[in-house]
């Protein structure tokens, strides 16, 4: 972030502090390179250099949030000054709390990979590695994405808080095709890893070639083995609902529960893990300048905490958990502790089960009740007496998140860092078996 922008931000805070009770500016400077791969060739290579300015303004308990992706900082200030003139026409905000008082700046270290800059200029090496590794498994073609990011953020508030943080991010995922079977794998980190690229290619290829048999499938209740990709997708929904704002808005199954209540199997814990510096969502301070910390959302089946910013915390008579979002608290990274079973043994333990390696299109019928369905894609495998007997095409899990969490059986010891198009909050997750899940497929 250049000195000019930095000076401008200080100027904005100083100037607007004359008109508003509180001012916070969150400036984000991003540089991203992305290679998209289509039929084993790049379809497009893209570069973004952006500066985003997020402005939180408060006056007499009224709240405004401005997000400007523009270099015209003067316009942003002008707009803010127009806003203040209409403040008395707007009612007090439902969820308002003063910004936290001054705190020391403690940015996270160990989250910036110097190699990212080089590969941003030379992404062909990484793309070629992903294509080559995946094709080496014997598949016919591969699609996928490689993204490299540098992110600098600066938070300045009128309470005297100022902190900067820089990090990098690396995302790679691949989908491999062989006949009518596909396999998919994904990885996310703060650091580039050539091993991870190779692993993504190998595992995508593995699942695309794991069986040649297409077998019949009868819808019903099954014990289902879910890959870390599926767990990552579903746990994103759980974590979104653990944000206190959706709870207060009726958008969440957690509206029915209080911290301390048992809501899941004892074997399952879900942590918000902003301090895991290997995952790309790592962050040292939230949007209110509160220092982040790792915390259980669910621990050994018990709901421990919702995710809070200062305003939702006051509303629910607790303290911020360092998860602001000025309006909506959010999770940063998610970590699910593994079990003691080997992945291979999870398959071996299935008597009549289904192994779902990837999913998409998760939708809820009712957030309050947690009623959802999601569709499998890529290898969906029927397992009998511990053996994969064939693939069954695309099926649907139709259940509730409560049932899913309560019916967790076993977790693998191995964990994988997952980040891709359908898993937007990075997740470190094991393979997990869940009993009595309803699987459907159209009769007509």
């Amino acid at each position, binding site marked *: 972030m250049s000195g000019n922008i930095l000076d401008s931000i200080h100027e904005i805070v100083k100037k607007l502090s004359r008109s508003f009770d509180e001012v916070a500016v969150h400036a984000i400077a991003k540089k991203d390179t992305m290679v998209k791969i289509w039929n084993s060739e790049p379809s497009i290579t893209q570069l973004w250099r952006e500066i985003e300015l997020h402005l939180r303004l408060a006056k007499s308990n009224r709240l405004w949030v401005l997000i400007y992706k523009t270099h015209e900082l003067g316009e942003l200030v002008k707009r803010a000054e127009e806003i203040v003139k209409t403040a008395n026409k707007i009612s007090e905000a439902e969820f308002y709390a003063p910004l936290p008082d001054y705190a020391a700046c403690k940015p996270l270290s160990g989250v910036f990979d110097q190699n990212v800059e080089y590969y941003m200029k030379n992404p062909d090496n990484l793309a070629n590695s992903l294509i080559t590794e995946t094709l080496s498994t014997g598949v016919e073609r591969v699609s996928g994405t490689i993204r490299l990011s540098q992110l600098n953020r600066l938070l300045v508030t009128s309470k005297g808080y100022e902190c900067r943080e820089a990090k990098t991010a690396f995302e790679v995922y691949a989908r491999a095709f062989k006949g009518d079977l596909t396999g998919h794998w994904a990885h996310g980190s703060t650091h580039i890893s050539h091993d991870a690229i190779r692993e993504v290619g190998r595992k995508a290829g593995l699942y695309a070639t794991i069986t040649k048999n297409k077998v019949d499938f009868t819808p019903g209740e099954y014990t289902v083995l879910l890959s870390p990709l599926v767990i990552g997708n579903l746990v994103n929904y759980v974590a979104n609902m653990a944000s206190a704002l959706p709870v207060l808005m*009726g958008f969440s199954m957690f509206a029915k529960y209080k911290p301390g209540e048992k809501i899941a199997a004892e074997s399952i814990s879900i942590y918000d893990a902003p301090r895991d510096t290997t995952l790309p969502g790592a962050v040292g301070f939230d949007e209110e300048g509160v220092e982040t910390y790792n915390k259980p959302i669910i621990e050994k089946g018990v709901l421990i905490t919702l995710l809070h910013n200062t305003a939702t915390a006051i509303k629910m008579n607790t303290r911020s958990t360092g998860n602001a979002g000025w309006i909506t608290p959010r999770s940063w990274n998610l970590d699910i502790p593994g079990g003691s079973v080997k992945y291979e043994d999870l398959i071996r333990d299935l008597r009549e089960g289904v192994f779902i390696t990837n999913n998409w299109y998760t939708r809820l019928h009712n957030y309050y009740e947690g009623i959802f369905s999601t569709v499998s894609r890529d290898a969906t495998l029927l397992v009998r007496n511990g053996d994969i007997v064939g693939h069954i095409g695309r099926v649907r899990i139709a259940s509730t998140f409560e049932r899913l969490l309560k019916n967790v059986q076993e977790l693998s010891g191995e964990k994988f860092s997952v980040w891709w198009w359908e898993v937007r909050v990075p997740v470190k997750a094991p393979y997990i078996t869940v009993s009595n899940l309803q699987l459907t497929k159209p009769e*007509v």
Partner: protein
Amino acid sequence: MQVDPGLLRRVVDRGRELGAQYVEARFQDDYVVGIGTRNDRVIAVYNNRSSGVGIRVLVNGALGFASTNSTSLSDLLETVEYAISQAKATSSLRKKPIEFSEEEVSKGKYGVEEKERLLDFGVEEMIKLAMEIYSASKSSVKEAKLPFLSTDIRVHIQEKLVVTSEGAQIEARVPRLYVNAFSVLMHLEKGTLQRSRWLAGSGGAELIKKWDPVKVFSEEQARLEKVLVSGVAPPSESIWVVLGPEVVGLIAHESAGHPMEADRILGREASQAGESYVKPEFIGKYKIGNKYATVIDDPTIPNSYGFFLYDDEGVKARPRYLYNEGVIYEPLHNRHTAKIFNTKSNGAARSMDYTSEPIIRMSNTYLAPGNISFEELIEDIDLGIYVKSYMEWNIDDVRWNQRYVGLEAYMVRKGELAEPVRNPVLEFTTGWFYSNILGVDKNLEFYPGTCGKGEPSQGVPVWFGGPNVKLSKMRVGVLA
């Protein structure tokens, strides 16, 4: 327009000087003012602006894209160099060069008329509307409670200027209005029912009067209360199924619109939004349905949410018949896929914002209506179900296996709507749906949505719609 076309022309010329076969520079400004409320309180007022230039180039048979939110000449010239360096960085990995179809060069300027200036529908008016929606909705509910009703109301002014190295120059201004209410109805014994309902389109503040959101939302709450309190489970045997325009529109979007995107057919979105059951050789030959299976995507519908007259490659927009009387007919094309299919682009390239590459998108997708009334459509049904709206839905990544869980639904008995039905589940394949349409009425209605696709994901405004549709008998499930 905030940016002079001459500025973009210089950028395009510079790209050509640097060896690009094709350069496209697009200034795009998206300005949003909105509010969020919960019950009778404001959560926040928000104001967003995303403004900058996206530059796409074709170099050595490879595509590169770069964007900047600066509009200074020096930054733009640097950005076109970045776009070219990006294309060159991976061009050695392409075995077959990317080419574009030849198209008529368009120059045009268009906008959407605002009878009442949209930005005059200010924050104060938005809050007043939100409070009225909450108050009227709460009053309309008698036996159940309405513990949560949140609204999201916003105006969005979108301006674009597209300049290409082939001489296209398109200037557009589209104002859009969006009103959403998300509600939770609760009954001590019957549980909860949730609804998310949108009204959205392009035009001015006059749309508020035309839509009457307070009436629409509050009357729907009263009907949904009956579903919650008195709704019965659907019968277990096979029954006739009639779907309302909201459900039919979504089906058209998901199982005709998406599988007919040519980039998806060719696999460009394979690792994200997926591929298509449609193969290139199906076009113009393969029958997916019966005579009622005509699905049209038309960006030119006045006041629609997915409105545009030229796409972001400068190609003139027109209605596209995706399925025509049961035949897989015309995919949505951009210039890249048109070249591969040896045809012309039909103007389907859209970008969410200046940071987004133009990709193939739907606009306003609908199943063609018929001539009969709703009463005539259901008059010979002895026992059936009418599903008017939905909450949960999904479809597989080749757009074949799909599910819709009804929200407002009724039994049909002896040709008339009867008692409400709760949570009916419909699962069928694309082939079954389009082959089992027995009738369509004349009541074409549109519903808004934000369609997601691409990487990074791009959400673009669309309408989807259709008439009421009568289907063959099927077994209707129920939430377990």
